[in-house]
């Protein structure tokens, strides 16, 4: 038996550690390089960790995520120009999801923007893109007024608490109410287990839950984590985080988004605000793409007889069909019990119900285009 190198993770240079590194190792986590950090992939079982989040509550160390404070008079206008969504319309105490594009429409990264004050925003971006993001934020800090950008990626601890029991769990440990927060709502100065945090009703799993930002990392993050674990939350590694987000059809940069993939191709047009009065980076190229019509788009596949992994080619069995698609992410779906995948395919193949094929090593297996997301939690 030998791993043939189609696993997850990449590393360059000396990997960083989150404030919870020692805890993960002491609790038997299988550690691997991801986004420049050594992160827990799984503790005991990806399938059981996945299940815990769908049925109870799980906690994730996501302190590897990059964070930048953007503050100053022109902060809202700066962000409106930088991203495709509309941060200046965001109310204080709310967050939004947005792609951030290059002038050619390719994607720099996707991120959350939290508005903590009129002129005070926290940007949360992918760890793997930290350096590119930092440079891009600075390079665009020109207009209409220079803003202050503070890279606090290494200082901020971040714990995601996800699952149907998340509200009850976090409420039991927080001094301020959190159950009244709407989706994408947030509150500052919430004490959790005696530590001052920012709590937002956001996540990356398709479940209800929170992300808890610990501004001063170190033992503070560990104190919050240990309190959550002691109260019954199941520690969950990045392995299950990936299967959870895949079922919920949430994009992962480097897979569904990249400098070569626009937000429109990735099915993120609701987050591209054409009606925004001022120009934004990538607007013209994206508009041209929209007017010309997309040539490819992201679809969901149910695959039979094998697991379609990222990079595997997708074909159409129709005689005369030309073109080729590409699996962007694929795995066994723990909730559905079948292999699922996201794939970028020629737009003619994107209709739900279309029968396609995926090449898996030496075999070709059937795959059907299905409605997305693969999993949607039931409304409470």
């Amino acid at each position: 038996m030998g791993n043939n190198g189609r696993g997850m993770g990449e590393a360059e240079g000396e990997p960083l550690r989150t404030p919870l590194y020692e805890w993960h190792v002491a609790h038997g986590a299988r550690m691997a390089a991801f986004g420049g950090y050594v992160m827990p992939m799984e503790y005991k079982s990806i399938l059981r960790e996945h299940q815990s989040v769908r049925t109870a509550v799980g906690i994730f160390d996501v302190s590897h995520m990059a964070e930048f404070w953007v503050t100053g008079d022109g902060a809202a206008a700066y962000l409106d120009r930088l991203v495709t969504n509309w941060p200046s319309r965001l109310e204080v105490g709310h967050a939004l999801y947005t792609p951030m594009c290059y002038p050619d429409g390719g994607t720099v990264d996707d991120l959350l923007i939290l508005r903590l004050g009129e002129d005070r925003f926290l940007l949360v971006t992918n760890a793997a893109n930290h350096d590119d993001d930092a440079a891009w934020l600075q390079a665009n800090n020109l207009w209409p007024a220079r803003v202050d950008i503070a890279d606090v990626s290494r200082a901020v601890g971040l714990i995601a608490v996800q699952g149907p029991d998340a509200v009850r769990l976090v409420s039991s440990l927080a001094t301020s109410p959190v159950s009244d927060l709407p989706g994408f709502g947030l509150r500052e100065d919430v004490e959790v287990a005696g530590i001052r945090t920012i709590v937002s009703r956001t996540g990356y799993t398709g479940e209800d839950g929170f992300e808890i930002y610990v501004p001063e990392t170190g033992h503070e993050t560990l104190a919050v984590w240990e309190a959550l674990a002691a109260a019954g939350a199941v520690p969950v590694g990045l392995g299950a985080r990936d299967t959870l987000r895949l079922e919920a059809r949430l994009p992962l940069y480097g897979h569904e988004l990249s400098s070569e993939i626009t937000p429109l191709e990735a099915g993120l047009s609701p987050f591209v605000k054409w009606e925004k009065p001022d120009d934004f980076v990538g607007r013209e190229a994206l508009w041209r793409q929209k007017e010309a019509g997309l040539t490819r788009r992201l679809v969901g596949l149910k695959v039979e007889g094998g697991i379609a992994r990222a990079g595997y080619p997708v074909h159409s069995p129709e005689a005369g069909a030309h073109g080729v698609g590409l699996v962007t992410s694929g795995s066994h779906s723990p909730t559905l019990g079948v292999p699922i995948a996201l794939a970028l395919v020629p737009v003619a193949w994107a209709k739900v119900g279309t029968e396609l094929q995926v090449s898996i090593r030496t075999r070709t297996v059937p795959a059907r285009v299905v409605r997305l997301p693969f999993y949607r939690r039931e409304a409470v």
Partner: protein
Amino acid sequence: MQVKDGLRYTREHEWLDGQGRVGVTDYAQGQLGDVVFVELPAVGQRVRQGESLGVVESVKSVSDLYCPATGTVVAVNEQLAERPELVNQDPFGDGWLVQLDLEGEPEGLLSADDYRGFIEE
């Protein structure tokens, strides 16, 4: 972690028993994590020692299986199509992979004691 006496082992963590049955070791299933898919050769296929015998997939990884002996596949564990988790639950028993009709004696396999020493290194 269990190493079963009386079996022969590869350095790639497969086992071979006296009836020609092949599986992966307890150590291997622990390293793999939750097995969710197994791809095996067809009955009647001739396989050679050291060549690929199929693939075991966990949620996050794809691992090649190496054939511990040369011979012909006379049976594959059909249960694994529906229950790949048997590889985790019972790697030396119900989680077996294929049965071979051996051609001659395989060379270079490890005894249980040698394999124990190998994985402890």
